[in-house]
């Protein structure tokens, strides 16, 4: 009798809980689960959006392996990600550490570093094309002041990707503020103890600060990885035609967008999408696996 009422109470709680989260459950089914499974299905078909998809087995996938454009797009995305993610992590932590020290005008600098990340992305793209404009841009003008000849930046095969990396670094205010909040959460006593034991600034950073903020680092690194793998908007706005000069800014999603919405190769694009999913999955699992080695959770120790 008692177990029965406990059970029915449990059921009641589950029902109420599900009722509250039901908007998300419906949304998850309609906007994530169904389209994800449909993408997987389309990836085994040829499909132009009209009529019915025709199943062709693994042909899209084997075509991907011979598609040079696809490989270029993977390489460009990889290039951007491998430089942008570590660099922005180091710079964001560095700036947060600077701001966390007792310096005058801290609020001013924090605001200054943060503002670029709320500038609308199309506006920031326009601004960067303009300041890096090869013949009239302010950056090349400043470089010529010190007798250097600036490159063509966004319009040079060699410099286009580094230019996008600079644009990415300009907008790192969001992770910086998250790191700053994490730094402010490190108990002061830990530094005092470390100092008493003779740890210098570098050792305090290495053995106190970084371990204490490591969960936040993991969070930020995963989020920025996922974002840079899907890099699109800035490259689409800045480069005409998108992907140029040459194929140096043909990022993965740029190529996907061309395949899906210009050439209407919906089956092929779906296969690309699924490959990207596998890639993100592998990267995330590797990161999470490795994280037990370098991420320190305070509560676990107790």
């Amino acid at each position, binding site marked *: 009798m008692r177990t029965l009422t406990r059970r029915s109470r449990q059921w009641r*709680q589950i029902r109420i809980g*599900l009722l509250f989260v039901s908007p998300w459950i419906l949304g998850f089914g309609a906007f994530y689960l169904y389209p994800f499974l449909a993408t997987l299905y389309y990836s085994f078909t040829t499909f132009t959006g009209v009529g019915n998809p025709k199943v062709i087995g693994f042909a899209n996938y084997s075509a991907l392996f011979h598609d040079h454009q696809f490989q270029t797009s993977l390489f460009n995305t990889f290039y951007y990600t491998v430089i942008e993610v570590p660099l922005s992590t180091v710079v964001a932590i560095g700036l947060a550490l600077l701001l966390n020290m007792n310096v005058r005008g801290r609020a001013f600098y924090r605001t200054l570093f943060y503002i670029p990340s709320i500038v609308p992305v199309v506006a920031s793209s326009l601004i960067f094309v303009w300041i890096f404009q090869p013949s*009239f841009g302010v950056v090349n003008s400043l470089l010529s002041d010190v007798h250097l000849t600036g490159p063509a930046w966004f319009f040079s095969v060699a410099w286009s990707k580094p230019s996008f990396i600079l644009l990415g670094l300009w907008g790192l205010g969001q992770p910086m503020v998250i790191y700053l909040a994490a730094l402010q959460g490190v108990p002061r006593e830990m530094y005092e103890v470390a100092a008493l034991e003779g740890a210098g600034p570098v050792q305090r950073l290495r053995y106190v600060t970084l371990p204490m903020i490591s969960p936040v680092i993991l969070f930020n690194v995963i989020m920025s990885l996922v974002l840079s793998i899907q890099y*699109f908007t800035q490259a689409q706005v800045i480069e005409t035609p998108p992907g140029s000069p040459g194929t140096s800014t043909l990022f993965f999603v740029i190529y996907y967008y061309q395949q899906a919405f210009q050439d209407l190769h919906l089956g092929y*694009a779906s296969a690309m999408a699924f490959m990207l999913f596998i890639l993100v999955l592998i990267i995330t699992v590797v990161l999470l696996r490795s994280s037990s080695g370098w991420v320190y959770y305070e509560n676990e120790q107790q």
Partner: protein
Amino acid sequence: MGIARPQVRPDQRPPVLTRPPRARRTPRKMGASAAKHAVLIAVGAMFALPLVWMVLTSFKTAGQALTFPVVWWPHPFLWRNYPQVLSSLPFGRFFLNTFVYAVVTIVGVSISSSLVAYGFSRLRWRGRNALFYIMLTTLLLPFVCTLIPLFILYKHVGWIGGYLPLEVPTFFGSSVFSTFLLRQFFMTIPQSLSDAARLDGASEFYIYSRIVLPLAKPAMATVILFQFIYCWNDFLGPLIYISNTNRYPLSLGLDLILGDYTTNWSWVMAAASAATVPIVILFFLTQRTFIQGIALTGNK
């Protein structure tokens, strides 16, 4: 006379309450402080330069923008670049479209994310954490993995060309970020408040709407603010679904400017400033809400 306050002499105050004593200004300390400021000023200049240059260019004549080496100060100072560029395209419509898009999705996010966040934080039930983790993993799913079937679906129901594909999902908890932020905030509200209300026979919906939501006003403000900025900046969503220029949001309108006036950089920068300045002003008005909100998302 009430309770006598213990008198604490300044030197006896518990250390947590005092600010750390100002370090004596030894030459070495001053050197270190100067080095810090030098780094901050240099980095600050790099962060400020693009925005300063945008604003300065926006007041120049088209010819003056194209001088090399550059001239810093606009001469003559042309205010009329702004009305000219803003009337060259239906920017009034673009602002209005963006605004409507923002308001509708703010309503959607506020309702659905707060309900879902409540279910994921204030109620205890079996399966809650499993579902919550599933929700978090959707953050990692690249948007291209769902885009094509959704596009075809929206085409079937006749939503392509309008904002419904971008608005409707927000009523179904599509903003995982907002849900997560609200959940983090709801967890900080003492559970005893809900327990007391339950003992009084209050329904769960009553507790949600009359007790928890009023206490969560700061978090709701953050969610609304972020959603507004998200819509203001959103380029990809409208790019995929909106084709008629009259229905363009600001972001797509700005993109048009670059295509149309590549030779007139003063106009391009005036348009970029017109899109940027309102959001920067909004940031200054709401800075506290902003910074706290971002810090909250970094928690765990």
